[in-house]
Structures are given as C-alpha cells and as structure tokens.
C-alpha cells in the first residue's frame, strides 16, 4: 500500500548505512532501525541504544504527565512530540527529547513543579522560554511555554484562542489537552520554519502525519487567518514533492527541501540563505520587510552577551566554511528543539 510510511521508507532506504547521528539529525533514526530489521540487516549498537532510550521515555511518559497534571493548576496543552507520536504506526518510532506544554501561567507552573520535587535543567542557555524542569530519574526535560513555538517574525495565535479550541490529549490522560489536528498541523508547520524553513525531514513527516485525513478546505482558511498562508502553502507542496503519492521536484523542494531528499545537513551558506529568504514568506509586504530587516540585523549582531571579537570570529568562520555542512557548532542561538 502506498502510504506515507511506505513512501518514507523508500525515501530513507538509500540512507540506511548513514551514521546513526546523521539519521538522528533528521529524526528518522528509529524508522531506519525498523527498516534495517525488516531487511534482516544488523542494527548498529548506537541505533539500538537510541531505540532503548526512546522506549524508556515512552514508558515514563504516562507517570510523568500524571505528575504534571496533578501539580499544575489550570489547563495544560501538550504539544508536538507525544501527540505526534500517537499518530505514528508505533509511538516509539517518533523520537523526542523533551515535552512541550503550553499553560496560561508558565512561571506559576514552574514554581509548582519545583515545589513538587521537579528540578531545573542546569545547562540551559536559551533565554526565549523558561528554564525547563525534569523529574529526578526521568531524563525528559519539560519546556513550559507561554506561547506556542512560532515563526520569530510573526505573532502566534492568542492563548485564549488555543485554550478555547483545545481537545483531550491523544495520550488519554484525564485533564490533559492538546490542539485539534488542523491547528496542530499549522503549529508544526510554523515550528518547522522557526529557525530555518523546513530544516529536518522529521518536521515534514510530523506535519504530514498530523494532517492525514484533513483537506485543504479545513487547513487553508485557518492558515490564512493565522498569517501562515504562504508558509503553509510551501510546506504542503514540499511534503507532496517529498513524500506525497506522486513525488516530484517542485520548486519548494528545490528551494527549501532539497537537502531533505538527500538527507544531508544544509551547508552553512544554504542555512543562512534559507533563514534570510524565509522571511519573504511573511504574509504582507510590510511584514516581509520587517522580518527580513530584523533577521538580517539579528544575524549581524552579536548574540546576547557575546563580545564583538567573538562575533567577528564566528562570522569569519561562517564565510570560510560556507560550503561545509551546518553543524550543531553553528547552532548557538538557534535552539535545536527536540519536541
């Protein structure tokens, strides 16, 4: 049967011998392990360890979410990772490293969790949301958001709208909420453009999974209302070109997602170009200009607290390594989100 999953298997089949780290960078390492087993081929030890880690996270999830629900008052919306995983053929095939919850009062929620025995994640250096917490013994950081992860140059939908729309979580835990498929699909799309358009293969797979069964009549109007029309349209076309029933090489694939078909990292130059050009997908000319100016200025300025000599050194290195793969070393300031 020509399902999303069989098409994805076809896409990753030529890359099964890639290093586990490389596969993990695109979030398809657990799918690759399954494919190797189906072919009766050995699964590298590192991939087996990754599978074990994910199985343990999945086991720990219900008790962790139950603790959070019992501790935090008010509505809690669970986003991304486990909600998407619930739509996979096996939830353990969708890796996630943390949980993302959206609450009306993040600081109060963080204080309540700390008072209940949760602890702060120590080495956290990303100031754009609260320091995550974790339960001792369960290595799953919990990121507490006051707004959904959204395009940097756009305003996300209001919490009032999101909490009003929320439905019971796919985890089945009483009192835990999530977003309906239409809104969740668009949130995943917005998130996939947050740091650079369509960076990882798993982002497109997640979006396609969440959108299964939905039609354009449901998604397009809401995308337009949320100012995501151009972003959603390009994302949808990239998905169709990559893992759609009739894969093609449409321009969104060439422009934004050619590294995904090859399952490689973008080069440093491609990454910067993608970040800058991506701002032109803002909904209005004024918004495009504003987004481009803010993004370019942000790229040219030192990061918070970074001395100018360090910034100059970093920029020189980026120019020198323009054709090299964009690596985690380059990701300072561009939080690699795992949910």
């Amino acid at each position, binding site marked *: 049967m020509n399902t999303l999953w069989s098409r994805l298997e076809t896409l990753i089949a030529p890359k099964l011998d890639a290093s586990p780290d490389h596969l993990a960078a695109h979030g398809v390492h657990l799918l690759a392990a399954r494919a190797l*087993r189906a072919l009766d081929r050995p699964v590298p030890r590192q991939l087996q360890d990754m599978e074990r880690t994910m199985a*343990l996270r*999945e*086991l*720990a999830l219900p008790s962790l979410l139950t603790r959070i629900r019992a501790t935090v008052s008010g509505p809690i919306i669970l986003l991304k990772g486990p909600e998407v995983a619930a739509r996979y053929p096996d939830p353990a095939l969708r890796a996630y490293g943390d949980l993302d919850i959206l609450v009306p009062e993040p600081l109060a929620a963080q204080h309540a969790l700390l008072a209940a025995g949760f602890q702060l994640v120590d080495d956290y250096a990303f100031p754009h949301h609260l320091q995550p917490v974790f*339960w001792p013994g*369960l290595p799953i950081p919990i990121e507490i958001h006051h707004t959904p992860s959204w395009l940097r140059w756009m305003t996300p939908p209001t919490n009032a709208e999101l909490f009003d729309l929320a439905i019971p979580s796919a985890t089945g835990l009483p009192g835990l909420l999530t977003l309906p498929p239409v809104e969740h699909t668009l949130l995943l799309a917005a998130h996939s453009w947050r740091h650079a358009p369509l960076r990882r293969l798993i982002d497109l797979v997640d979006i396609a999974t969440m959108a299964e069964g939905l039609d354009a009549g449901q998604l397009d109007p809401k995308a337009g209302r949320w100012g995501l029309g151009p972003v959603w349209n390009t994302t949808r076309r990239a998905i169709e070109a990559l893992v759609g029933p009739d894969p093609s090489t449409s321009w969104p694939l060439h422009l934004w997602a050619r590294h995904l078909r090859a399952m490689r990292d973008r080069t440093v130059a491609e990454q910067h170009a993608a970040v800058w050009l991506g701002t032109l997908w803002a909904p209005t000319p004024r918004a495009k200009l504003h987004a481009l100016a803010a993004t370019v200025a942000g790229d040219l300025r030192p990061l918070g607290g970074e001395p100018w000599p360090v910034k100059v050194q970093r920029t020189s290195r980026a120019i020198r390594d323009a054709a090299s793969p964009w690596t985690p070393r380059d990701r300072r300031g561009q939080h690699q989100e795992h949910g």
Partner: protein
Amino acid sequence: MTYRVPPHVHFRSLHDEVVLLDTKSDSYLGLNQTAAVAWGVIATGGTQAEAATTLVTQFDVTPEQADNDTGTLVAELLAKGLIEAEP
C-alpha cells in the same frame, strides 16, 4: 508459585528485549533476550519452573542452568518490587 506485575510497574517489549519502569522509584531495568523470554512467562502468570522449561526449549541451556537463571531473575525481580507473589 505464580507472580503478578504490580500496577506501578510498566514494561514493553523492544525487539528481543524487555524494558521495565518502576514508577514508584523511577528506576529502569532492561532484560536481555533470555531474561525477556522468562519475563514473558512470569508476567503472564506462569511459574518459575515453566519459565525455565521455556528457556530450555528456546535456548541452548541445560535444565539446571535454566532453573538457576530463572531463580536468580525471579529473586531479583521480587527484591526490586517488579513482581509480586500471587497469594
């Protein structure tokens, strides 16, 4: 004697292994292939002797080895509270 898995213990198969989580202590345990087969018998109401017999049929072990291994496993699982003896 038969055993049961207490409600605070969650487990899942992972190919030829089993991983267990004790949600009271938040401790994990991974069982290798042979222990996973024995677990499959014990966790579904089988006795230690039945688990040992299963190991003999599926692996190249003597009845004595199988009895010894399953005895050690059951003792460890009981000590860690991962199974309970059925009354």
